[in-house]
């Protein structure tokens, strides 16, 4: 009996190891493949005849003399001015994160400390807003923004991204502030602080772990957004993600698809570094809403 149970346990273990192994390969392989391939020429990256060409770079050696080439990167960054898109992304993401954290901290704190019924309704409304497809909101902005002549500006995109970010930010920070004991700010108020002073002197110094976690997700939303940035930004103000997408159409025609591959790798690299340094915060942020109820 015991041996039977044990043997079943080991088969289960093997099955689960295999499953995890397969998943990890499926998860990582596309990135490794694209990263490796971005240093090749198109004939190798799309090597229909023999896939090992992509590994050894047969065509790359024939065309450029070496097994690796940075032509894709040079083409994307210099010829297609991808660096401008990188700059735009930096500006837009930076301001989106700062503003949405400021708004979200104030709001989340208020919701966590208010026992009134309308606090619940605001959170419920935020949940519904969170579910709105971004493109439906965008179709609501287009006409008024054209009329007011604010379409295409970086500032417009920042404000819209901040607003779209708010529901999520509110929920995260609300549950985070709920875990900070009420006594802390209330005892400060007993000592004569106003609510805002209590918030400023007592809560702000201890809130950074939660704010950083929330900030990471605001960053990801702004950095990865396509619906808003592709529809609301003019060509010179475009960020990386819509630039990569519009590249895809134009460079495919010119036979320069490696530019798009290089741009994709360039846009993914910062995320890679981000996960490397903030893995724990990201995981805790993903599960915060779920595990704490």
């Amino acid at each position, binding site marked *: 009996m015991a041996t039977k149970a044990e043997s079943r346990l080991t088969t289960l273990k093997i099955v689960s190891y295999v499953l995890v192994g397969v998943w990890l390969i499926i998860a990582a392989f596309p990135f490794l493949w694209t990263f490796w391939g971005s240093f090749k020429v198109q004939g190798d990256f799309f090597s229909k005849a023999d896939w090992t060409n992509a590994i050894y770079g047969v065509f790359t050696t024939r065309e450029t003399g070496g097994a690796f080439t940075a032509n894709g990167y040079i083409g994307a960054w210099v010829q297609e001015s991808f660096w401008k898109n990188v700059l735009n992304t930096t500006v837009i993401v930076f301001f989106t994160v700062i503003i949405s954290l400021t708004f979200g901290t104030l709001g989340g704190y208020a919701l966590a400390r208010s026992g009134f019924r309308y606090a619940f309704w605001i959170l419920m409304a935020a949940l*519904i807003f969170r*579910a709105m497809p971004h493109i439906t909101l965008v179709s609501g902005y287009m006409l008024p923004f054209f009329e007011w002549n604010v379409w295409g500006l970086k500032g417009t995109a920042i404000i819209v991204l901040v607003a779209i970010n708010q529901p999520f930010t509110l929920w995260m920070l609300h549950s985070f502030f709920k875990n900070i004991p009420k006594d802390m700010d209330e005892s400060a108020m007993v000592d004569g602080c106003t609510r805002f002073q209590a918030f400023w002197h007592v809560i702000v110094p201890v809130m950074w772990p939660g704010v950083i976690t929330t900030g990471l997700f605001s960053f990801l939303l702004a950095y990865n957004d396509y619906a808003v940035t592709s529809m609301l930004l003019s060509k010179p103000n475009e960020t990386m993600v819509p630039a990569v997408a519009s590249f895809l159409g134009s460079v495919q025609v010119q036979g320069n698809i490696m530019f798009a591959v290089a741009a994709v790798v360039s846009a993914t690299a910062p995320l890679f570094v981000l996960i490397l340094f903030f893995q724990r915060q990201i995981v805790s942020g993903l599960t915060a809403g779920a595990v704490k109820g």
Partner: protein
Amino acid sequence: MKHRTFFWFILPTLSAMILFIALPIVSVLIQSLFVEHEQVLVVSESCGPFGCTPTTSIDAEATAALREAQPLGRFNGLGTYFDRSHLATAEVAEIWRESNGLKSFFNGLMDLKFYKALIFTLTYTFIVTPAVLVFGLAVAVGVNNLPRAMRGVAIFISLLPFLVATIVGSMILSWMLDGEGIIGATLQNIFNDPNLTIKSSTPLMWIALIIYGIWHTLPFSFITFYAGLQTVPQDTLEAARVDGASKWQTMISVVVPHLMPLVSFVTLMLLMDNFRVFEPIVSFQAEAHAQSLSTFILSDLREAGNPLYASAGATSILTIIGVAILLTPVVIRTWRDFNATSH
């Protein structure tokens, strides 16, 4: 907290949400009730030696002036909702009358733009969501069995597909699945069919998009379930083992019930996100084979020169109604929980 203080704290975030989420929904609703101006036609008579013939021409200037003066267009009521490219009530009735059996009715529906998009969106949502729940749980259990040192690496790798921009991630996959990419070319070799590409076949494109969806969202359910597994009470597990339950039985009767609240949370998030599937279709350049409600709106807005705001608005409102239907059970449950805890 006093109402007054609450008001000042909540003001920035609330005004951002009202101005840029609530009002746009109203704006979309209004747009959907209007329709673009028709072109202004001028009838002029050109008289020649053989008498006069009336000719109709477009008065471009007057059209532009009219569009300038009333950018919304002319009032159309619910007309746009029921026209051929949306609910198409007349066409659906027609198809229903002419079809013999469900299959031909279904095929007829697939010719209508809106229903095609709706059917794809629902298929995508209701295949990806359960698949991600099951596989996510399986991977979470597997990673939980790994030696501690390897778990961090596993989580790091798993996070990549989820956190990379959807447009970028789906582009990477579409290159691999391309007829000349590694997976696409290998499949062609295996099946010995050089015409086998996702770009040329609707079912293959749907499968590719669904596989992408699973690849992209599985990490989310995996991470959530993995965190949940850390909180399974050890005593209960111990008790189950003492009572002679097998690993599998323990899994079904102890672990899964413990994770149930997480399952409903993950399901909610997945439903919301999958229903608005959008970027992969852009990246895969799949518009010819698969449209979702979101890309349907995008193509209306992208209409060269003269965006179809009315059509986009009507689709948006119909999408929002879809989201509302999906969310109703959750809102009702949260409301019950809230009342239960407050009394």
